[in-house]
């Protein structure tokens, strides 16, 4: 089993290094193939591990070698395959294998083909480290590793200013969160003396509540960054500058869910601090509706999907926050499948449309790209949570959990969000595939993607449809580790009312979207319509003005302050002081060298003056000693 574990872990790394060898050379198909194959190996290994874990109910735990030791600190490279991590491994390897294969086609004409696969495999490796590590430090390695790869992939087209900007934004925002994570790790170490999961969690119940709260908060701050929770969410939408497979893999299926994974992994901690859990849930709910609202009007298909991801992450946090860890994990998994599918579909569309992203410039593509249309529609259905697709099982559970836990506000918010989700998903479906063929106005010649790309997508499609049926077996598996709380609304009537009501609401939203956006009157918005002038539209299209707020009130001041620090503080104060001291000394010399006039008379005068000065001092001193008692009297009178 250890060998399998190492295979699963290191196969992507090997692939990445292999591809890196050709990094600077022009496209060689072999890199794509090799990396994909290696990922396949990894997938197989993960699958075997999954089966092993399910069947035996045991963990695979290895300690490869020591990493850091200093003082009492001991951090090994330790890896664990348990129910949680194996789930994640499955998701990661599966989606990434699909994406790799897909990308061979998608990146076909790109000059950076080899580089792309190197980065992509490196990402997978980092992600595997993240999920498989048996300690927080190892998690942090993966955590930063995925951040790095995300940076490299978002900025993959580095000639584009917007891409590199987005890459840096993503990295820096993640770093902000990572600081929180780091602090959380420090707290854990100084309070439990270890960073190993099982030891640390074992020690936690003995700690003070306040400490635990702090640990919980700081770790969650870390999670917020990776999972793009408010207020660190802006990077995710901008990250869509990267190639679409990247968005599918990183910004939908895997990396962004790392935050959720962290919370699930730390469930023993969060179970001790329900208040923090509630906060997480509330924030999740807020982000869910907040992101969904922004998705409503956006005119960039990838961004819409990105907001959707954000929104779904909100769902997951709600579940995790409310203690329904297994539900969160389940939704994470299901979401990974259909969201990746959605992205890849969007990738097909982009490919067809020469990277055009505005759905208003498309329309009627369904005729040219039937398979893609079907796939995307099904994925959207899954996303919307229609029975019997994957989304229904996972998302519905979250709603139920919220209901059962009697957090009705959260429940309501999530319910509304579900409606919004359905609306915006089908808004773009309608805009892209149905209605007038507006693309002709812009001179596009769309075509369907390569066959093998579509084939590659098919496992995802399958899973998006059927993943819900694994619910029970899944439940059995993960509840070996996670608290086995079943969320049943005991009153059957209520159950049915809620379930059916939700379904109807969602379907209504879908119809509304179709009705609104399939009509022939849909035009490319030109900023003249009443809606576009409305306050809400502006608010939403500008993402609540948050990016601008950041730009105006954080980025710019930072840049200006930096300049002030450099040009004014550092040069004009600190350095000028140093130079000033030197200059004062020098100028004193320059000015007083006149003393040495070279005239003998002056020199003699100086000598006499020196003598007189000494004599005066002598007299003063003589008087002072003779009258020292009187002087003291005067001084004491003055209060000295």
């Amino acid at each position: 089993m250890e060998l399998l574990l190492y295979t699963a872990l290191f196969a992507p790394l090997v692939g990445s290094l292999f591809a890196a060898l050709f990094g600077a050379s022009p496209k060689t198909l072999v890199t794509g193939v090799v990396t994909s194959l290696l990922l396949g190996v990894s997938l197989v290994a993960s699958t075997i591990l999954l089966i092993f874990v399910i069947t035996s109910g045991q963990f695979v735990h290895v300690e490869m070698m020591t990493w850091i030791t200093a003082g009492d600190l001991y951090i090994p490279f330790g890896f664990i395959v348990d129910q949680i991590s194996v789930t994640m491994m499955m998701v990661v390897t599966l989606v990434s294998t699909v994406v790799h294969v897909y990308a061979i086609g998608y990146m076909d004409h790109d000059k950076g083909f080899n580089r792309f696969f190197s980065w992509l495999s490196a990402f997978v490796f980092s992600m595997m480290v993240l999920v498989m590590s048996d300690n927080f430090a190892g998690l942090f390695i993966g955590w930063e590793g995925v951040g790095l790869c995300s940076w490299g992939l978002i900025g993959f087209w580095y000639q584009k200013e917007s891409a590199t900007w987005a890459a840096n934004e993503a990295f820096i925002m993640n770093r902000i969160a990572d600081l929180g994570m780091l602090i959380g790790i420090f707290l854990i170490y100084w309070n439990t003396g270890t960073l190993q999961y099982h030891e640390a969690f074992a020690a936690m119940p003995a700690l003070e509540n306040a400490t635990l709260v702090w640990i919980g908060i700081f770790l969650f701050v870390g999670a917020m960054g990776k999972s793009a929770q408010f207020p660190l969410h802006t990077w995710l939408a901008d990250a869509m500058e990267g190639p679409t497979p990247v968005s599918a893999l990183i910004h939908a299926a895997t990396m962004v869910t790392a935050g959720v994974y962290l919370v699930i992994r730390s469930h023993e901690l969060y179970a001790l601090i329900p208040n923090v859990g509630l906060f997480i849930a509330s924030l999740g709910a807020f982000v869910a509706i907040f992101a969904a609202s922004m998705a409503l009007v956006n005119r960039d298909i990838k961004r819409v999907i990105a907001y959707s991801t954000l929104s779904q992450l909100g769902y997951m946090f709600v579940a995790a926050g409310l203690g329904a860890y297994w539900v969160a994990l389940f939704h994470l998994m299901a979401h990974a499948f259909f969201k990746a599918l959605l992205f890849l579909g969007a990738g097909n569309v982009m490919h067809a449309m020469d990277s055009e992203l505005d759905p208003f410039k498309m329309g009627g593509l369904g005729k040219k790209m039937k398979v893609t249309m079907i796939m995307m529609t099904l994925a959207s259905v899954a996303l919307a949570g229609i029975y019997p697709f994957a989304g229904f099982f996972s998302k519905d559970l979250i709603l139920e959990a919220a209901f059962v836990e009697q957090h009705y506000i959260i429940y309501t918010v999530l319910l509304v969000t579900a409606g919004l989700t359905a609306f915006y998903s089908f808004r773009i479906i309608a805009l892209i595939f149905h209605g007038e063929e507006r693309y002709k106005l812009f001179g596009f010649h769309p075509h369907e993607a390569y066959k093998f790309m579509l084939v590659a997508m098919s496992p995802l499609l399958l899973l998006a449809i059927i993943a819900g049926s694994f619910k029970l077996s899944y439940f059995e598996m993960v509840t070996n580790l996670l608290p086995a709380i079943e969320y049943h609304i005991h009153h059957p009537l209520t159950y049915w009312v809620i379930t059916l009501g939700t379904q109807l609401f969602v379907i209504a939203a879908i119809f509304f979207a179709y009705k609104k956006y399939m009509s022939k009157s849909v035009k490319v918005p030109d900023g003249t319509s009443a809606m576009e002038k409305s306050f809400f539209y502006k608010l939403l299209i500008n993402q609540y003005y948050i990016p601008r707020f950041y730009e105006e009130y954080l980025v710019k001041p930072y840049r200006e302050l930096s300049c002030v620090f450099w040009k004014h503080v550092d040069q004009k104060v600190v350095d000028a002081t140093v130079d000033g001291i030197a200059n004062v000394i020098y100028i004193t010399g320059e000015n007083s060298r006149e003393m040495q006039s070279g005239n003998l008379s002056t020199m003699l005068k100086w000598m006499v003056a020196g003598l007189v000065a000494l004599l005066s001092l002598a007299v003063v001193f003589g008087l002072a000693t003779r009258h020292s008692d009187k002087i003291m009297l005067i001084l004491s009178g003055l209060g000295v």
Partner: protein
Amino acid sequence: MLEPVNVSLESLNLMTLAPMLIPIIGALLILIIDIFKSDLDKTLYVMISIIFLLMDLGAIAQTAGIFNESGTIMGVFDVMLIDGLAILAQLIIVGASLLFIPLALTHSRFHEFSYSEFFALFLFMLGGFQFMVATDNLILIFVGLETSSLALYTLIAMHNRDKAFEAAVKYFTMGALAAGFFSFGAMVFYALTGSIEINQIATVLTENGFADMGFVLVGTTFLLGAIGFKLSLVPFHTWAPDVYEGSSAATAGFMSIVPKIALFVVAMRMFEFLIHSGVVWLEIILYIVVVVTMTAANIWALVQNDVKRMLAYSSISHAGFVMAAVLIGTTQSNSALFLYWILFSFTNLGAFSMLWISRQKHLPLHQSSDHSYNKFAGMVQTAPVAATIMGLFMLSLAGIPPFALFWGKLYMISSAVSGGYTVLALIMALNSAIAGYYYLKLIVFMFMRDPVINKDGHVFVSNATHPLRTIIGFAAVGTIFAFVAINPVLEFITALVFKSGY
């Protein structure tokens, strides 16, 4: 009627006179030779001088041996006083002279070294200095001082060009004023105590508990003026830069070392007992003078355009630095004074010698002085070895370890620390930093700039002959490997100083 005086020859301890008499005899010999045959080559005189200096060294060693056995020796009606200070100072005087005198053997001919009188006067001067340090009688000190000074004025003037005369006249006139100060100061102490021997003055003053403090202060002031003049303490220093610039580099180097050590010994004898007896005023005054001398001279040195003038100011600063030893007045500080001055002597003489071998007969183009910084620009490209050696001396003067002067500074600052003068120690340290700048300036010119005036490296060694190279080599080796010798030298000095009761 007066009784006839019976004096036994043994009680006179005539051998105490031997070290001083040897150079005087040598000088007379040179004069006699000159009478019989003039126009003899300078090498002869140089060698005669060296022989006599070596004999002198031997005589000093002899007295050192006796001192080591029997302690302080008084001789010739107790006028002569041979103690550790006297021995050490004489060793430095003669040693530095030995380094100096071969500098006469330059490639080009310079006026003073071409005449036998120069060597005769030089030896007379040494005799004067040796008398000064080997007595505590103010009369003998005064006469010795004047003998040597008058000879020195002439030596400077014998360089025979306008600047040299100007320097000599300035030095002479101010020296005359200082002589007035000295005699007035001595008079006041005589009035106070009825004696002009420092140990008796000390005894009497201590006995009556410094009753006439006013007189003491006036006397000290005048003596400080006189001694400070010779030691170039600010504000009595004004002669120093001009005189250094006016005289030949070799003479300037000599002047920066030998006269000063003689005066340091006098200052130690004169002032330390006063400070130890609690004349706070003197402590304060010396403190101020030391600090001002160090600092002001450093600051002026910063702005100089001529290397020799810079070295003049730097010598002033070093003198101020060392004067701190007198202020501190512990055995350690007094030992530090000698250690410092020994190390300083070859470093500084080495530096001046480097200037000396680069001396040209005429001023460089568009320059108003012999050794402007510009002259040395880019030296490393044209004369790398010479530049390196010069740089070495500069580093040593700046107190960069492990070169010679660092150890002196170290021990001196340590003595300030141990003596309880914390702030002084800091000021000394900071002054070393300021001093770093101007020494560095020369290094910058030599190593980091391109040549301006001299594109031909030969200029820098135009005066070099084997003897000069040897001297410089000796100084350089001494500067680099000083750390090997520090321990024996320090032990020797400390033993002598301690045994003399300082």
